[in-house]
């Protein structure tokens, strides 16, 4: 028996079977409630924004419009950035790119719900974290182009960012490894009597790796102050989430077996993600340990520039996703609040698009991949070790640098 996705190419899309709790219907336990007393939250879906854009229910966070507008802008900048870089790759300016379109609320809302000193162990699909934390997009583009602006000196494939300064751990190409590393970082923080916490992200597919199990085990045993996020965007390249076991139980439910509190959240609902993350962060900072959060969302585009999703899923799946688009939904809410308008939205969109285009021009002035405007090739022999050993010195000579 092999699980099959709802719709392959040519098949009709029908999401009506999805069990979606009504907005505001899921209860909110106190931050110090026992993990064992909230198993129901691993099966429900925390939603705050209703179809009219109102924030309803116990999870509705008290958050100012100013913060939400910053969040809206960060999501829009993320999407604009993704669009530009995707096109740049298509134009042959770099080797690879990977968007987070449709999933912006997760990274951005969580960045706002956490302290700037908290440490983030992201996968390759949380570029929104960096943008929300104000990391210079010019540097991100430098990394994507492997040009002279690249803080990683051209060593990494596009999107594998790293910034100690911004509390963003070097992204690994090997899925899942960061999950247990985040737990280790959190254990270190706790045993150093520090109140910073860690957060990490993996996708639905990645939950099948051993590191996922290590992370939940260590987090539970040592009560580490960490937030463990599973971004369930329904797909892992061409495999739907059922191939990772998502049809047998929710990914949030994985936490139950370890005695961890587990929340399941509408990942396209900025306020729901924000509220759930705040709850988990408070819990962690109060030394009550880790929380597992499943973000229920949809990967609106291909896995990356390397695949064509129409070969393995129905074309109209994205447009039929019942939980909408995170930017649209937050915009509607802000308008409902009376603090925003369609005109201002369009103006902002215009501004953001121009901004990213300008940054792109500046970035490309420092070179794109293949234009030989990189760091010096001799840097390729540095940072293998703290000090270069004789092998590398000789090899650098052999290489002629």
């Amino acid at each position, binding site marked *: 028996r*092999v699980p099959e996705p709802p719709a*392959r190419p040519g098949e009709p899309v029908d999401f009506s079977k999805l069990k979606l709790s009504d907005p505001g219907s899921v209860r909110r336990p106190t931050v110090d409630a026992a993990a064992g007393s909230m198993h129901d939250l691993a099966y429900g879906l925390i939603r705050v924004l209703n179809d009219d854009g109102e924030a309803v229910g116990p999870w509705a966070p008290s958050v100012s419009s100013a913060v939400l507008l910053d969040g809206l802008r960060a999501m829009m900048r993320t999407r604009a950035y993704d669009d530009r870089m995707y096109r740049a790759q298509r134009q042959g300016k770099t*080797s*690879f790119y990977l968007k987070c379109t449709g999933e912006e609320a997760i990274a951005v809302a969580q960045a706002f719900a956490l302290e700037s000193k908290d440490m983030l162990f992201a996968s390759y699909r949380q570029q929104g974290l960096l943008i929300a934390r104000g990391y210079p997009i010019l540097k991100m583009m430098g990394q994507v182009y*492997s040009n002279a602006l*690249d803080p990683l*000196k*051209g*060593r*990494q*494939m*596009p999107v*594998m960012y790293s910034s100690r300064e911004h509390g963003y751990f070097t992204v*690994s*190409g*090997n*899925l*899942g490894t960061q999950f247990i590393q985040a737990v280790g970082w959190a254990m270190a923080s706790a045993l150093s009597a520090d109140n910073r916490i860690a957060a990490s992200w993996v996708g639905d*597919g*990645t939950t*099948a*790796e*051993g590191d996922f199990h290590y992370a939940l085990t260590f987090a539970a045993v040592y009560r580490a102050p960490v937030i463990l996020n599973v971004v369930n965007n329904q797909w*892992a*390249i*061409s*495999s739907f989430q059922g*191939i*990772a*076991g998502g049809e047998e139980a929710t990914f949030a439910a994985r936490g139950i077996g370890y005695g961890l509190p587990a929340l399941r959240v509408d990942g396209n609902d900025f306020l729901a993600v924000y509220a759930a993350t705040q709850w988990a962060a408070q819990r962690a900072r109060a030394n009550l340990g880790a929380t597992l959060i499943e973000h229920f969302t949809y990967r609106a585009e291909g896995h990356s520039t*390397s*695949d064509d999703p129409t*070969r*393995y899923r129905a074309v109209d799946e994205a447009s039929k996703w019942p939980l909408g688009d995170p930017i649209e939904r937050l915009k509607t809410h802000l308008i409902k609040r009376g603090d925003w308008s369609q005109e201002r939205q369009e103006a902002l969109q215009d501004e953001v698009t121009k901004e990213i285009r300008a940054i792109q021009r500046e970035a490309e002035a420092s070179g794109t*991949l293949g234009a030989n405007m*990189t*760091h010096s*090739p001799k840097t*390729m*022999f540095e940072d*293998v070790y703290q000090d270069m050993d004789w*092998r*590398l010195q000789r*090899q650098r000579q052999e*290489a002629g640098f």
Partner: protein
Amino acid sequence: MPTMNIIQAVNSAMSVMMSRDPKVVVFGEDVGYFGGVFRATEGLQRTYGKNRCFDTPISEGGIVGAAIGMGAYGLRPVVEIQFADYIYPAFDQIVSEAARLRYRSAGDFTAPITIRTPYGGGIFGGQTHSQSPEGLFTHVVGLKVVIPSTPYDAKGLLISSIEDGDPVIFLEPKRLYTGPFEGYSEGAVKPWSVHPASEVPEGYYRVPLGQANVVREGADVTVLAYGTMVHVALAATRDSGVDAEVIDLRSLIPLDVETIVNSVNKTGRCVIVHEATRTSGFGAELAAIVQQQCFYNLEVPIERVTGWDTPYPHAFEWKYFPGPARVAEAIRQAVGG
């Protein structure tokens, strides 16, 4: 005879074996409906059904562990690890289990499994889509390690691997999937159709494991290579103007030491080429064997031309890759030029 590239040849090998032997099953990440990120399993699920070719969770350790259990049951699993760079989560199952079952059970249980995985650089994949880990597996007794360099060999060697009673790590040079890449980063890429070894029989045939292939006879120096570097070595030989004998090892374990030793005893000179990092790469074992067996015939030191001892750097791929220029230079040096 049809012409195939390496992807098609690998696909054909699996298809032929699935139709001949109901015990052959194929699985891995994205290999089912989608047919694999490199399309190597294209059409197999459609043809042989979901029980014989299916997607797995993203769990290399689980994939290999399950394959070992299936092998114990009596099936012949052929699994795909999407990139060789991602084989490490399966390392314990490969090293402690697959490689040891026959020995520790005195033949009671075996692991007749084949682990296919694309290796090597040249596609701007950065450090986690470019690695050449073959050397690690050659140090693990109980494993066989096979690396083809042409469509013809890829199919014949994969069929031999699937039929082999021992676990085989089958490394596919991804840079050769669609053409006989000679290592020039600039210039037009040749398709396989221009290469004689792209003529591949539709049906069943074997290329035995443990037999090297002298792809170019020569008198002055022996060049040992495998996978992508075979084509680079040939190009370098041409560029160098030296009459080099180029040997394609085809399988590292078992190793065709006889062909190697005879050649070096004839030429008195040896250059070893691989893309993997130098220190403790398979080139070290080759050098150790050659100096020991051909000592009194060697006229110059054995040289290794390899990837540098660094991770594979995205932007500097062509400074890292041991291309024709570096290999040609080593060949010239070897003949005292």
